[in-house]
């Protein structure tokens, strides 16, 4: 059965988590532990922490994130297309070119609008 493949993925997941946690557990057992006030401070170039952690992030982050989401979703349509392409006629190519053109138009729009500039 196809789904059984993912039993291995589950086991691998457990292995990986174990692989990550085992040394940490070991560290907790054997490594020295001396708490001190200064040690627990946030490290910001050695000077005392100033102000809130809040940094005024640019809206650019959001714009890149939506571009990413949109193109990521696009790939979800592209993969099935690529797989099925061989069994279908030319119309499949036409449809995909239309689809790609729509999304490239989105990219071109963002470019022309000047939001793809990290200033």
């Amino acid at each position, binding site marked *: *059965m196809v*789904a*059984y493949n993912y039993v291995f993925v589950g086991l691998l997941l457990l292995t990986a988590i174990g692989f990550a946690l085992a040394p940490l557990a070991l560290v907790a057992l054997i490594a020295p532990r001396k708490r001190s006030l200064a040690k627990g401070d946030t490290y910001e170039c050695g000077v005392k922490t100033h102000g809130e952690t809040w940094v005024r992030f640019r*809206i650019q982050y*959001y714009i890149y*994130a*939506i571009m990413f*989401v*949109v193109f*990521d*979703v696009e790939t*979800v*349509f592209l993969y099935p297309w690529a797989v099925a392409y061989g069994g279908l006629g030319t119309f499949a190519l036409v449809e995909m070119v239309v689809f790609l053109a729509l999304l490239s138009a989105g990219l071109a729009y963002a470019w022309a609008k000047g939001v793809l500039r990290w200033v």
Partner: protein
Amino acid sequence: MANDIPLSWFLYFAAAAFATGLVGVLLRRNAIAVLMAIEIMLNAANVNLVAFWRYGTPAPGAGPLPGVILALLVITVAAAEVAVGIGLILLCYRRWRAVDVDRYETMSG
């Protein structure tokens, strides 16, 4: 193995998740939290769709996987909705410095 998990278990899971999401939508006041609750609801519907696809007998002419196609479209729509929703939330945040759904009351009536 998986052959014998009853269909209704999946439906129960979806129903519970859906109810949770709906409660979240009704009770949370932060717009981003509401957005997350909506995502839960959409996912619950997806679980339903895929479970019905796998367990059900398709009516003639329904195609090999209508449920999965619908679920894929829902995922697409959900992604677009989050993108748009965060955009609108940021827009409001810039105006009010808050993302509290109840706090925007410029209009009366």
